[in-house]
């Protein structure tokens, strides 16, 4: 029992840690696209670990089930929002700061490369 308790506290602490790191990254990183990575850290790892810890605390009850639903909701809506955001930002004409642009990679291999043509570093 005490072991289970310790495990749940450990999970909650990990969740708090990732939430703080995500928020910190949101401040620190240089442009929208990189910040979106940091925000998805909160959505997935932060909320995931925290809710896992809470689930252990709640035991096998309806509360656990609802926690699972909230988590699933976050996991399904998170990528949709991030994708919509990145796509809208690109469409408006926001240029991401890049260290390397490999978007032209596929064009070298022709317009319709075979599926096994991928993975070749350009």
């Amino acid at each position, binding site marked *: 029992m005490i072991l289970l308790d310790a495990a749940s506290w450990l999970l909650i602490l990990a969740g708090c840690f990732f939430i703080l790191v995500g928020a910190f990254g949101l401040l620190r990183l240089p442009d929208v696209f990189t910040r979106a990575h940091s925000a998805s*850290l909160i959505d997935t790892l932060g909320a995931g670990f925290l809710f896992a810890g809470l689930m252990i605390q709640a035991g096998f009850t309806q509360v656990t089930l609802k926690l699972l639903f909230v988590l699933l909701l976050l996991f399904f809506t998170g*990528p949709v929002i991030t*994708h919509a955001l990145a796509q809208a930002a690109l469409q408006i004409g926001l240029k*991401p700061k890049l260290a390397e642009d490999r978007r032209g990679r596929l064009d070298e291999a022709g317009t319709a490369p075979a599926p096994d043509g991928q993975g070749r570093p350009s």
Partner: protein
Amino acid sequence: MRVISFGVILYLFWLALSGYFKPFLLIGGLLSTLFVLYTARRMKLIDAESYPAHLFPAASTYWPWLLWEIIKAGWAVTKAVLRPKLDITPTMTRVIATQTTPAGIATYGNSITLTPGTITTGVDGNILTVHALERGGAVDLEEGGMDARVSRFEKGG
């Protein structure tokens, strides 16, 4: 068959969320389930894409795999954020999705976005444009490990 199992799942969902087992509420839930089923059928929403019953067994192995990927990628992003010197290498690349159905490509794109460090920014046919926080994340995707895994998931394996 598909409609009936969908209805059963909806009703169980309703039961789980309500948590009350009085006859009046049970019948109310049943009626609302039937109403939702009726409208969903009229709108032709219950098909293989929106209710992929054949994928449920495959999902039971795909989700744990994806969770592990998320944890690994998340740790990499955490390290990148906390490194005293901000030496991230944001990279954009394009990868080919080998899935055959639109739902499969959507699953691949969403899996990419769900793992921290990589975001699908655009879909054009079966070519996905991806923004990665680190160069390594982009190269990993180009090597196609996740793509193969999603393709396997799509075929029910």
